[in-house]
C-alpha cells in the first residue's frame, strides 16, 4: 500500500504519535497523569515546603570550602582571567573560516548563549541573596566575557600571527591558576587542606583530565606495541586498574602510599586522591584510545612509514590524530564519569562539593535539609555533565572530516 501524501496537520501528528491505537492512547493518558502529578508535587514542594536558606547561607562554603576569607580576591582574579580567556577563545573559534558554513559574527546559538549568560549573572546572585557588591562583580565578569568574545570576533581574524599564542593561553592560565589558588611567587601559601567545595571538585577533576589523557595515549600505544615487555606491562596495568572499584584505589592511596615512599615524601591527602583519580582514568582513556587505534586501517601507518617518517613521527602526525578523532566520544564519556567520580573524595574524608555538603547537613541548624542540598548538587552536576556531552557532540561534527561533501 502506497501511503498517500497528505498535508501533515498538527492534530494528525499528535494522533499518530500519541494515540495511534487504543493501547497507545491509554499509555499516553496514564503517563500524562503521572508526569503532571509529579511535576505539581515537586513544584509545590519547591515553592512552599523547601527551605532554601541552607543554600543561600552556605553558598561560599559550597563553592570554596574553608578557603581563607582574606585571600579570596585571588579566586575572583582567577575567575576574571578565566572569563576573559573563555571569551577570547570563543570569539576566535567563531571567526575561524569553515567550509560550507557562512561565517557569521553572531550565529543564533551564540546570541542565545549570551542571553543565558547575562540572565544567569543577574538571577543567580539574586537567588542566593548575595550582597550588592558580589552581585556587581558577577555582572562585570559576564560583561567581560561577552566583551572579550566581541573583541576576538572583531579583530581576531586580522591578526593571524597571534594565532599560535592562543594554544598557549590555556596551559599558561592553568599554571597561573595553580599559583593563585595554592600560593607561591610572593603570594601567601594556602595548603590543599583548605581548598574545598566546588573549587576542589573542579580542580581535582581538571588536574586528572589533563594528566590522564597523555598517560592514556601512551598506555594505548603500549598495549598495541610489538615489544612484548611494553605490551604486557600496559595490559597488566590497564586490567588491574579496571578490575578494581575506584573507592578501593582511593583507599589504597590514602593508606598505603605513605608506606611506599620514604618518610615525609608522600604528598598531601588531596594530591594523593588527585593522582589516584589520574591513574584510574588513564586506564579507561587508554581503552577508548585503543578502540580508535584498532579502527584505523593499518595502511595509514604503513603509508606514513613508507614515506620515510620515523616511527614517532608517524605516530604523532598520522596515527594518533586520526585515532583520537574516533576515540573522542568515548573519551569525553570518560571525562564525564571522572567529574562524577570526584564525589568519592567525600568518602575518604576530603571536603569536595559533596563532602562540604555533608558537613553542612551535619550542622544542627540545617538538619533534615537533605532534599534541598542534594537536589541543588544534582542540578549542578547535571548541567556540567550535560554541557560536556553537548560540547563533545559539537566537536565531533566539527572534526568530522569524512570525505562526504559538506552540506552547502
Amino acid at each position, binding site marked *: 500500500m502506497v501511503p498517500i501524501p497528505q498535508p501533515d496537520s498538527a492534530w494528525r501528528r499528535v494522533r499518530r*504519535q*500519541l494515540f*495511534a*491505537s487504543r493501547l*497507545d492512547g491509554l*499509555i*499516553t493518558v496514564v*503517563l*500524562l497523569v503521572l*508526569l503532571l502529578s509529579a511535576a505539581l508535587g515537586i513544584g509545590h514542594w519547591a515553592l512552599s515546603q523547601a527551605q532554601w536558606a541552607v543554600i543561600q547561607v552556605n553558598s561560599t562554603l559550597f563553592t570554596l570550602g574553608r578557603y581563607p576569607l582574606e585571600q579570596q580576591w585571588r579566586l575572583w582574579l582567577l575567575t576574571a582571567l578565566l572569563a576573559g580567556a573563555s571569551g577570547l577563545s570563543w570569539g576566535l573559534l567563531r571567526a575561524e573560516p569553515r567550509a560550507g558554513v557562512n561565517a557569521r559574527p553572531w550565529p543564533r546559538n551564540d546570541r542565545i548563549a549570551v542571553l543565558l549568560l547575562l540572565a544567569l549573572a543577574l538571577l543567580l546572585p539574586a537567588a542566593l541573596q548575595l550582597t550588592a557588591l558580589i552581585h556587581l562583580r558577577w555582572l562585570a565578569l559576564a560583561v567581560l566575557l561577552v566583551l572579550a568574545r566581541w573583541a576576538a570576533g572583531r579583530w581576531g581574524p586580522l591578526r593571524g600571527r597571534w594565532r599560535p599564542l592562543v594554544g598557549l593561553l590555556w596551559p599558561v592560565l592553568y599554571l597561573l591558576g595553580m599559583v593563585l589558588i595554592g600560593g607561591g611567587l610572593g603570594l601567601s601559601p594556602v595548603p590543599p587542606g583548605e581548598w574545598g567545595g566546588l573549587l576542589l571538585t573542579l580542580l581535582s577533576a581538571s588536574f586528572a583530565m589533563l594528566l590522564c589523557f597523555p598517560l592514556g595515549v601512551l598506555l594505548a600505544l603500549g598495549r598495541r606495541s*610489538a*615489544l*612484548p*615487555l*611494553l605490551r604486557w*606491562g600496559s595490559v597488566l596495568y590497564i586490567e588491574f586498574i579496571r*578490575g*578494581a*572499584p*575506584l*573507592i*578501593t584505589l582511593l*583507599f*589504597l592511596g590514602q*593508606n*598505603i602510599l*605513605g*608506606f*611506599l*615512599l*620514604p*618518610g615525609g615524601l608522600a604528598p598531601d591527602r588531596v594530591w594523593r586522591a588527585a593522582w589516584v583519580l589520574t591513574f584510574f582514568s588513564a586506564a579507561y582513556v587508554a581503552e577508548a584510545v585503543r578502540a580508535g587505534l584498532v579502527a584505523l586501517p593499518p595502511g595509514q601507518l604503513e603509508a606514513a612509514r613508507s614515506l620515510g617518517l620515523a616511527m614517532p613521527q608517524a605516530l604523532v602526525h598520522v596515527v594518533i590524530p586520526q585515532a583520537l578523532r574516533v576515540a573522542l566520544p568515548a573519551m569525553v564519556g570518560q571525562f*564525564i564519569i571522572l567529574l*562524577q*567520580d570526584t*564525589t*568519592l573524595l*567525600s*568518602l575518604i574524608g576530603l571536603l569536595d562539593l*559533596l563532602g562540604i555538603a555533608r558537613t553542612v547537613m551535619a550542622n544542627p541548624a540545617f538538619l533534615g535539609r*537533605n*532534599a534541598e542540598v*542534594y537536589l541543588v*548538587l*544534582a542540578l549542578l*552536576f*547535571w548541567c556540567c*555533565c*550535560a554541557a560536556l*556531552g553537548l560540547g563533545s557532540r559539537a566537536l565531533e561534527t566539527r572534526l568530522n572530516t569524512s570525505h562526504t561533501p559538506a552540506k552547502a
Partner: protein
Amino acid sequence: MRSASPGPVIPWWRDRRLIPWLVQGALAVVLLVVVAFLVGNLVRNLTAAGLLLSWQWLGQPAGFDVAEPLLPFDAGMPYWRGLLTGLVNTLRVVLLGLVGATLLGTLAGSAAFSSNALLRALARGYVELIRNIPLLLQLLFWYFVVFLALPNGAQAIQLPGLVLAKSGLYLGRAALADGVWQLQSGLRITVEFAALLTGLVVFSGAFIAEVVRGGIAAVPAGQWEAARSLGLAPAQTMGRIVLPQALRVIVPGLNNQYISLAKSSSLAVACGYTDLYSVAETTLNQTGRAVEVVLILLGSYLVIDLLISAVMNGVNRLVQLQER
C-alpha cells in the same frame, strides 16, 4: 656478506634488529628500579611500624558487628569470618542488582522504539537524567531523602502485601504491635539495603538501556518489516524477531555494565549498608593492617569481575551459536 659490501657502516645503536631489545632492556631496568625502590620502602616502613605482612590477625576475634548478615555472624567471630560476611552481603546486592537493572534497562531500552512519542521521550529523559548525576549523590538521595523519610508505625504506607516503613520494607504479611511492625510471614528488607538496591538498579538501568537501544538499533530495518508483513503483532516482533538478534550486540556490552555495577556496589557505605568494603574499612581501623586489607579487597573484586565475565562469555557463546 655484509662485511663485503661497501657503504656507510650502521652504528650498533641504530641497528633495526637491536633497537627493540635496547628499548625493552631500558624499560625493564627502569621498572625494576622503581619496583625495588617501592618494595624496599614498603618493607622498611612496615618493619618500622611492626606491621610486616602476616595473616595471623585474620584468626583473632573481630569485635564488631555486621548489620543484616546473610551468614550468621557475631562480634566474637574472627576477622576472616567478618570479611566473608561482608563479601556475601556484597554478592547479595550485586546479584539482585543485576536482575533488577537488566529488567529496567531492557524496558527502558525497548521503550525507545515505542510507537508512542511520550513513552520514547520518557525513556530518553530517564537515561539523560540518570547518566549525568553521580551515583554516590543518587545513593545518598535514595537513602536520606526517600527511604529514611518513610513514616513509621501506623502512618506507614500500606499496600496489599507490602508495608513501607522507616523500620523496613515488609513483603508478605506484617502486623502492627505496640507501634512497631512485626513480620508474620514473608520478607523484611532494611531501608539501607532497599536504598542501595534501588540506587544501583536505577543507575545501571540507564546504562543498560543505552546498550539495549544500541543493540536493537543494530538490527536491520528489514527484519522489522518482514516480521510485520508476516502478520506478527508488535510484541511478537520485538520478542521473537528483533530481541534475539539484538542480543548478539547487547551481551558483550552487558558484560561491561555488570562489572561496573559490581564495582559500584562498593559505595554501599553511603547508605549505611554493610558490604565487603565497609567491613574492610572497619578492619583496617582496628588492626592497622593496610596492605593485607587492600590485597583482600582488590582480590575479592577481581574474582567477582572474573566470575561475571566467565558467565557472560558463556551466555555470549549461547547467543552467538544461533547464527547460521
